[in-house]
């Protein structure tokens, strides 16, 4: 049997167009469904992430709160620490006088008879006597080697000679400079003074300049709002910031002989 298609071509085309339109419609519906599904997934993910965010935000807030407490504890300890540090610095300051004098004494030859050690700002003056000029020289050389000083001046009363003074910087202790200081050369001294009778001891004065880092400064008390009252506050003295009413009209002295 022979089947002959006598229908015009547009009939077939219309049929195909209709099927294509149905297919396209189905695809669009699937697309919309996919979009809807994706939208729901995103919303679900967002909800889950939001819960996570809330959780971590709460935890982070807890950490921030703890850190705030830590800061608060530290700032609360600050004033206590300031006073404790000040008291410790005060004791260190007191002991530093002993340390400084002991360091000064460490460079004094044991054959030197020290009369006084005076400290005034940057200047240290040692007066003493030695058995001989040789002893004076040794003491002077020892002092020149002391790391505390930037400058040492020697004053020596040689029996029969007037006082001579020479200065040498330890930092410039080259042979040339040392020789130029005239140490041990009678010709470098000031001259003969016959009016002074020779004595057994040679008086020596050393005037030294402390390096700035060895100058002792007292620690200042913690900054206090109400000031510091002392004889300043109660009627004169070194402390600043009078904070107490009334006035001092005298003072009481206490005997302190220990033994």
């Amino acid at each position, binding site marked *: 049997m022979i089947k002959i298609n006598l229908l015009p071509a547009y009939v077939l085309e219309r049929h195909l167009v209709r099927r294509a339109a149905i297919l396209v419609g189905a695809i669009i519906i699937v697309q919309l469904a996919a979009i809807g599904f994706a939208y729901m997934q995103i919303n679900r993910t967002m909800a889950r992430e939001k819960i996570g965010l809330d959780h971590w935000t709460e935890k982070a807030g807890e950490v921030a709160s703890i850190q705030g407490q830590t800061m608060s504890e530290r700032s609360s300890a600050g004033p206590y620490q*300031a006073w*404790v540090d000040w008291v410790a610095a005060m004791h260190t300051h007191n002991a530093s006088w002993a340390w400084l004098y002991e360091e000064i004494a460490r460079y004094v030859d044991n054959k030197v008879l020290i009369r006084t050690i005076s400290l005034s700002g940057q200047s240290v003056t040692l007066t003493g006597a030695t058995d001989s000029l040789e002893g004076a020289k040794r003491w002077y050389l020892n002092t020149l080697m002391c790391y505390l000083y930037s400058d040492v001046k020697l004053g020596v009363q040689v029996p029969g000679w007037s006082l001579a003074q020479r200065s040498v910087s330890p930092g410039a202790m080259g042979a040339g400079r040392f020789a130029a200081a005239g140490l041990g050369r009678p010709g470098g001294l000031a001259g003969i003074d016959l009016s002074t009778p020779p004595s057994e001891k040679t008086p020596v004065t050393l005037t030294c300049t402390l390096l700035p880092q060895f100058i002792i400064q007292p620690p200042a008390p913690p900054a206090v709002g109400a*000031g*510091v009252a002392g004889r300043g506050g109660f009627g004169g003295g070194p402390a600043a910031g009078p904070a107490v009413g009334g006035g001092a009209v005298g003072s009481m002295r206490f005997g302190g002989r220990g033994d």
Partner: protein
Amino acid sequence: MSFLGRLTRVHVLMAACVVFVAVGVSFMVFVFRPRLDTLRQTRIDINTQRAGAEKLPQALVELAKAHGDYLMTKGKFDVILNRQPKLTVNDPIQAAFDLWKEYGPLGTGTILVDWFRANRYDVQGISIPSPPLPPVQMPPLIALSMSGFSLRAADFAGVMRFLRATPQMPRLVMVNNVSNIGGSSGPRGGGLSVPVPITVYIITKNAIQATPVGAAAIPAAAAGPSREEL
């Protein structure tokens, strides 16, 4: 023939492509993109917050340490404060009478003298000023300057012992200056006479309230590399 009648499959497929792309792009631009941006930002926020939250153990350790430091520092301060005379700080009238007692024969002067005597220090020049009249606003720190204070010691070591003994003294004593050590030591000498101007400090109970947070003592200047030997 109508318009629809002239449509071919190609037209339909082209239109379908256009609709498909237009729908997809529209949803992407107007719906998904803002949501995805929000999601991305949320995740960044989560990471930030998580990074902060993960410091919790460290924060707890630091808090415990800070609290421990606070207790230790406060304990040290309390030890210092307990060695101070008990002075009323809230009542201006009582404060004045407390100061009278403290400045009187049973107060700081006598306490120091007794201590020096007990420790065999020969000192002179302990001078306490007259107390103020009431009412007294108690300051956080009272400084009693004794510029005429001096020490007599048998030898140089005795002077050094005194200078190192201040932590044991019953009051806070600062040695202002040791400007001169002179005299003669030894069995035939008359001893060393050392003027030691001092300041006696009394810390009162309101020291902490009067101290601003962050205040710090200014330490003494370093006195040489071997300061740790002190």
